[in-house]
């Protein structure tokens, strides 16, 4: 049984992670991943004004103020981008510093003037305190998460269209700017609601990290959204449990968990991950080395049963390093295509067959490039032996005749 507080934080952090991940995916694809950071910073003046207007610390009033100034910040970003030459990154930076500076000034004013009511801990809304989530916080976060989910489900095709190709959407008659604003509004609400619990840094991280991790893992938007929400929830949950066990502050642990998930996805994701790409590249390079090595045999015209080729002779026929040549030769030996005795290498029967097939492929590709120069860029494949898979059969048959 876990402690009550741990349970509360667990639920809150998981919901927060899931909703941030979901919405963050759209922000990421829109190239506005840092919007969450800007929003959180832009919320500060609204928080302070809410406090000043109400006279004391009331969470709903302050959050409403935070939302208003956060949204105002985003509107300013949009205006800057549309009517001036300032680009996205600069616009975000400008709004962030402008609003946050104003917020700090207001905070200072509040600190030094007796305005009644306890004003302690106002700046904790910047840093947040995930560990002290109470049931009320979790309810708010969960409802916002559900609203976000409903919006994404209902407007999935609209959001996808506007994120992918906004001008086309406009031509079709969709209110592209409105839809864009709606997405940003969802981001805003998620961020603002997260602020008291999570603070600025954590919210910005939760918006970016799960989405970026999910991007590595899939090529489909729907899968990316689901994964992003899952990764976010996972980061929230594991960060909470680690913090409960070890005594480390909860917010930073959640960020660390999120970062770990991202790094793992970046390195180990199938096909798009760094490791997978490196392995695929290595596999391809080996195949090419092998093919070139065998073609070298063919060029030197080794008849079956002859004494075999010396290493140096082979080396003069290929353009890559002796180390790579040696490895290729050993690979051929392991596959039963070659027989070597240290100094010379001989083709086996299987080896001869391989050489013949390669020579055929090379001949056919050359013919293809001559006969169909216009198709070259579409179909040419560095891995020569794939010619039968890549080109249609009739075309191959035609090329054979040449």
């Amino acid at each position: 049984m876990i402690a009550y507080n741990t349970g509360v934080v667990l639920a809150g952090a998981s919901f927060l992670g899931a909703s941030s991940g979901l919405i963050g995916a759209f922000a990421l694809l829109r190239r506005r991943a840092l919007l969450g950071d800007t929003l959180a910073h832009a919320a500060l003046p609204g928080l302070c004004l809410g406090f000043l207007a109400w006279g004391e610390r009331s969470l709903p009033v302050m959050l409403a103020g935070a939302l208003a100034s956060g949204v105002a910040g985003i509107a300013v970003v949009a205006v800057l981008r549309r009517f001036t030459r300032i680009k996205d990154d600069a616009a975000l930076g400008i709004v962030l510093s402008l609003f946050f500076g104003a917020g700090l000034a207001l905070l200072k004013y509040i600190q030094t003037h007796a305005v009644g009511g306890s004003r302690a801990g106002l700046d904790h809304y910047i840093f947040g305190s995930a560990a002290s989530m109470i049931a009320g916080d979790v309810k708010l976060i969960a409802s916002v998460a559900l609203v976000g989910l409903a919006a994404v489900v209902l407007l999935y095709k609209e959001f996808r269209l506007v994120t992918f190709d906004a001008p086309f959407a406009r031509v079709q008659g969709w209110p592209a700017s409105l839809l864009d604003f709606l997405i940003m509004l969802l981001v805003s609400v998620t961020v603002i609601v997260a602020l008291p619990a999570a603070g600025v840094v954590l919210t910005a991280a939760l918006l970016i990290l799960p989405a970026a991790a999910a991007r590595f893992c899939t090529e489909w938007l729907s899968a990316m959204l689901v994964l992003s929400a899952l990764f976010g929830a996972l980061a929230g949950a594991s960060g909470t449990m680690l913090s409960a066990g070890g005594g480390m502050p909860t917010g930073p642990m959640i960020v660390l968990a999120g970062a770990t998930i991202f790094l793992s996805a970046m390195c180990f994701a199938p096909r798009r991950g760094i490791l997978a790409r490196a392995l695929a590249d290595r596999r391809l390079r080996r195949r090419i080395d092998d093919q070139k090595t065998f073609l070298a045999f063919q060029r030197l015209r080794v008849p079956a049963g002859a004494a075999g080729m010396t290493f140096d002779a082979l080396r003069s026929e290929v353009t890559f390093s002796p180390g790579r040549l040696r490895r290729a030769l050993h690979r051929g030996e392991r596959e039963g295509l070659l027989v070597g005795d240290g100094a010379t290498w001989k083709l086996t029967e299987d080896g001869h067959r391989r050489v013949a097939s390669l020579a055929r492929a090379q001949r056919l590709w050359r013919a293809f490039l001559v006969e169909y120069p216009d198709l070259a860029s579409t179909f040419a494949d560095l891995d020569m032996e794939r010619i039968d898979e890549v080109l249609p059969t009739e075309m191959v048959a035609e090329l054979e005749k040449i």
Partner: protein
Amino acid sequence: MCPRQTPNDPHLGRSLYAPCALLLIVIAALLAGCQEPANGSSAQTKTSAGQQFDGEYPIQVVTTTGMVADLVEHVGGVQVKVTPLMGESVDPHLYKPSGGDVARLNRADMIFYSGLHLEGRMGDVLSQVARHKPAYAVTDELDREGLLQVGSETFDPHVWFDVALWRDCLALVEKSLVKFDPSHADDYRGRAESYRAELSELDDWCREQIAAIPSERRVLVTAHDAFHYFGRAYKIEVKAIQGISTQAEAGVGAINELVEFISRRKIKAVFVETSVSERNIQAVVEGCEARGHHIQVGGQLFSDAMGAAATPGGTYLGMVRHNVNTIRRALE
């Protein structure tokens, strides 16, 4: 800065780039190295120690916290006008001075601050000012043996919770004022003496009051860990959520521990502080309720700041009395 290419030696310009760059780097490093070390405490520097007051009364004194202001006022009386930078409900651990604050510090005749790194973010400013003004940390002459140690070289700065310790700070204030304004030395000494007596009386009263709480319920649970001196002086157990400085964020593990502790010992009340956010306390209360242990917020304590100027909580004496009364009422 670097000479152009000369007709005779076209490579001269290029070969001087490296030495020029090196020179720039060395200059930059020297400039950077010439900074004052960030230090709050021993700013009682040689340059300003010998100064004496020769202006118009009252002497303009600027302090950091209200508690220090209170101390100086009781010694300086009509001869001083004391302005604290931090008002009610301000957290001195996190307080960053504004341009106005720095100006005020520069206009002051004397400066007093708490010291022991309480004013965590003002170290640079204070050491800057100390170079041309008399600036004193009131805790500087306290015997380090009597302080609570936190790290290898750092001490818990919340000494004003132990009235006796705070009373001992009077000596330094008295001495500094006398040195700065010898013409009123007798006034200062007199006032210090009488306030010293008041504080001793208060110290005894506190001990008596707290002792009246039954021992098994004598536990003080607060938001941040400021009350250790209080606990040691008046024999009450002290527990908190956040650490010594409010700059550190709490972990859910710490909250769990506290909930467990409170429920086990059946403590009746926890306390919020005026200068610290209540969020952590709220979470603890909810956690205890979930375990079936009913707990209430016993009241608001003054921890790192005093109350508003015109209220009873706005003086040191009033603040201590309020705290002790609140604690006793809630825990008895």
